[in-house]
């Protein structure tokens, strides 16, 4: 039996005893009070165990969104058990137990809220996993299709006979035909004799046909003899005709075709000539040989069909290549889609950032001081429990508390500094020593990292600035939005304009596209942004430099309370302040950014709900500055929205 189970059993027994004591008359109030104290202590201890377990899970290092979901689901389960312990342990008909239930009701609500936040996170993680899987499935399908097309193309290409080979084969077939007819190597004299024979036999054929016609009604025997002569002459005439026709056909056959298109034209020409020859000659000149009349036509028809087939194969390959290119383009688009890349690149601490964005200010005003075990709930036992649980969980992990929250600062390697570098440092030694003396002042001015500004190194390389000069530059850097003012040792002042984009005075507006650059601080909730609590930094923590959308604008009081939150596209902080009649020094502006949808389009957030693309909160000075660079202003013609 684990500690929690044991403690729960003890509490249940104690509650039963409390119930019985209430029913007895001879039990002193002091004894009842003592028991109630014990029960309270045990309940706090049990809650502490739940808190420890959750804290351990929250700090558990995960490497994928699936792992993170498993952790979050476990936290939800624990939160439910914890909430149940804080609400259902008591018999509300018993006055004493009702009192205890009321005592723990705030903690129960807090637990329920935290569980609800994690449920939202789990849904986001599930959506992220679905999105990733869908992307992956789509991409896999496309890759399969691409492979299938490549295979089809290869198979078809293998069955295609190159045009020149086909043409060669056609010529060879023709040569074979000439050979069969024994006319391949005919001399000019023999061809002349053949033509003479053709002329004589044609004339003789005409004469025989006339004689047959004349004799048909006069003398049957004579008619029969003419018929025999006709058959014999028909054979000889056809033979001569065929030979001369084939020799004549060489004018078309021997022209080389350079493409299937040319070959197809050539073939069609041959086919037409052959068909015309056979049709015109057979019936008139040798009617008794009608059955053989389509011999050449059939012979070349097969070749023509083959050419058509080959041409179609080439067309098919071209069509498949086109389809393959389209598939490849689609794959590239999928694989280079920033949203897809984001699903593949798991960012540690995402869950905590998500939890923070779940805390929509309007929704969780009562809980605004609670942030994942690091926050403070004034004046309740929870304060002590949270801190103790956290420290215990961290010590179980063998990490010092601060380090666990800033894991980036572990030393992993060391080496001797090159002398060239040390020489360079020597040049700035005086400035570095002076900065050291003023470090606290700088950090108190708002920076944890000591940054002397862009002009520090550049200026000191050419001008021996005093420490006071450097300090002045640094402090001005943090205090003014537009210029650096550097006091030189000769008493003059040098004013350096900041980058124009940095100083562009544009009031943050829902729907704007903003580039968030390295070094910008970001927060889990708007309140932390004002109070400078739980600071994260672009480039050092999970958020990367890049373009994001402003999806919420919040006006806050100087002490971190919400004045107004708006998610309407086109609404600017300036406009909100104007509507509320606020003067510039009466509010702070905090923006919330989102990454947009998978195609990079803006998603309008809804009040009281998280948006699937929520990222984090960033404090602005009422304009885009200090590392926030306006990339694209939201357009003015907005359906349902307002204008800047």
């Amino acid at each position, binding site marked *: 039996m684990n500690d929690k189970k044991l403690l729960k059993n003890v509490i249940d027994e104690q509650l039963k005893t409390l119930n019985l004591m209430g029913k007895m008359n001879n039990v002193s109030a002091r004894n009842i009070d003592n028991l109630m104290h014990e029960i309270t202590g045990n309940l706090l201890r049990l809650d502490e165990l739940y808190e420890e377990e959750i804290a351990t899970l929250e700090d558990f290092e995960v490497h994928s969104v699936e792992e993170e979901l498993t952790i979050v689901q476990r936290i939800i389960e624990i939160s439910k058990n914890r909430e149940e312990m804080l609400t259902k342990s008591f018999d509300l008909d018993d006055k004493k137990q009702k009192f205890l239930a009321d005592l723990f009701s705030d903690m129960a609500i807090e637990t329920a809220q935290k569980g609800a936040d994690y449920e939202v996170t789990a849904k986001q993680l599930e959506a992220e996993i679905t999105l990733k899987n869908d992307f992956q499935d789509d991409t896999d399908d496309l890759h399969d299709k691409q492979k299938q097309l490549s295979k089809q193309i290869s198979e078809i290409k293998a069955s295609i006979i190159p045009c020149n080979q086909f043409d060669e084969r056609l010529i060879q077939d023709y040569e074979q035909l000439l050979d069969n007819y024994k006319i391949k190597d005919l001399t000019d004299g023999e061809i002349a004799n053949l033509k003479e024979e053709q002329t004589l036999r044609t004339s003789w054929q005409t004469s025989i046909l006339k004689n047959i016609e004349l004799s048909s009604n006069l003398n049957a025997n004579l008619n029969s003899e003419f018929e025999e002569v006709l058959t014999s002459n028909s054979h000889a005439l056809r033979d001569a005709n065929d030979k001369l026709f084939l020799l004549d056909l060489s004018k078309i056959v021997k022209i080389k075709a350079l493409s299937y298109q040319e070959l197809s034209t050539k073939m069609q020409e041959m086919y037409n000539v052959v068909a015309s020859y056979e049709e015109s000659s057979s019936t008139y000149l040798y009617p008794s040989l009608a059955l053989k009349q389509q011999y050449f036509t059939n012979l070349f028809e097969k070749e023509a069909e083959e050419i058509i087939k080959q041409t179609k194969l080439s067309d098919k390959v071209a069509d498949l290549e086109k389809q393959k290119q389209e598939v490849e383009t689609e794959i590239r688009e999928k694989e280079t889609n920033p949203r897809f890349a984001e699903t593949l690149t798991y960012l540690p601490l995402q869950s905590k950032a998500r939890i923070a964005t779940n805390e929509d200010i309007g929704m969780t005003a009562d809980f605004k001081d609670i942030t994942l075990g690091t926050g403070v709930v004034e004046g309740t036992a929870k304060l002590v429990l949270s801190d103790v649980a956290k420290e215990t969980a961290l010590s179980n992990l063998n*990490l010092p508390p601060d380090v666990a929250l800033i894991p980036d600062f572990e030393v992993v390697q060391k080496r001797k500094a090159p002398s060239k570098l040390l020489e360079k*440092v020597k040049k700035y030694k005086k400035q570095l020593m002076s900065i050291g003396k003023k470090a606290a002042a700088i950090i108190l001015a708002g920076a944890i990292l000591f940054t002397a500004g862009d002009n520090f190194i550049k200026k000191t390389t050419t001008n021996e600035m005093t420490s006071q000069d450097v300090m002045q530059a640094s402090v001005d850097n943090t205090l003014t939005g537009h210029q650096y003012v550097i006091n030189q040792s000769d008493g003059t002042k040098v004013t350096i304009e900041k980058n124009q984009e940095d100083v562009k005075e544009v009031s943050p507006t829902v729907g704007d596209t903003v580039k968030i650059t390295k070094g910008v601080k970001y927060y889990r909730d708007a309140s932390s942004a004002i109070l400078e609590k739980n600071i994260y930094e672009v480039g050092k923590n999970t958020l990367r430099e890049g373009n994001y959308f402003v999806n919420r604008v919040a006006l806050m009081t100087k002490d971190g309370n919400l004045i107004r939150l708006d998610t309407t596209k086109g609404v600017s902080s300036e406009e909100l302040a104007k509507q509320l009649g606020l003067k510039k020094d009466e509010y702070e502006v905090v923006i919330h950014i989102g990454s947009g949808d998978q195609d990079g389009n803006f998603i309008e957030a809804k009040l009281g709900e998280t948006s699937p693309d929520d990222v984090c909160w960033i404090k602005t000075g009422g304009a885009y500055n200090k590392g926030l660079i306006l990339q694209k202003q939201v357009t003015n013609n907005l359906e349902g929205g307002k204008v800047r």
Partner: protein
Amino acid sequence: MNININEIIKLHNDLEYLVLSKTNYQNSCYYYLIEVSKDDDIKDNVKIVKENKVEDRLFLIPVTNADELEEVSKLLSAELESNNLE
């Protein structure tokens, strides 16, 4: 792992810092660091950090407490003065 002045340390986040000076204050060790670029040039980013050893691992925690920073920075500056950077 121990670190000394004039050594370049590489942190878990891949950033490198040169150790400018080192001091002890209230039984803790503090360092004054300046960031070093990939091509071994100095960058205008300095830190004052506190050492925290856990078994054989060494963690550096940025000092944010004003009083602690005030005291430590004076000591580190003095130590830097005596560093010949060689």
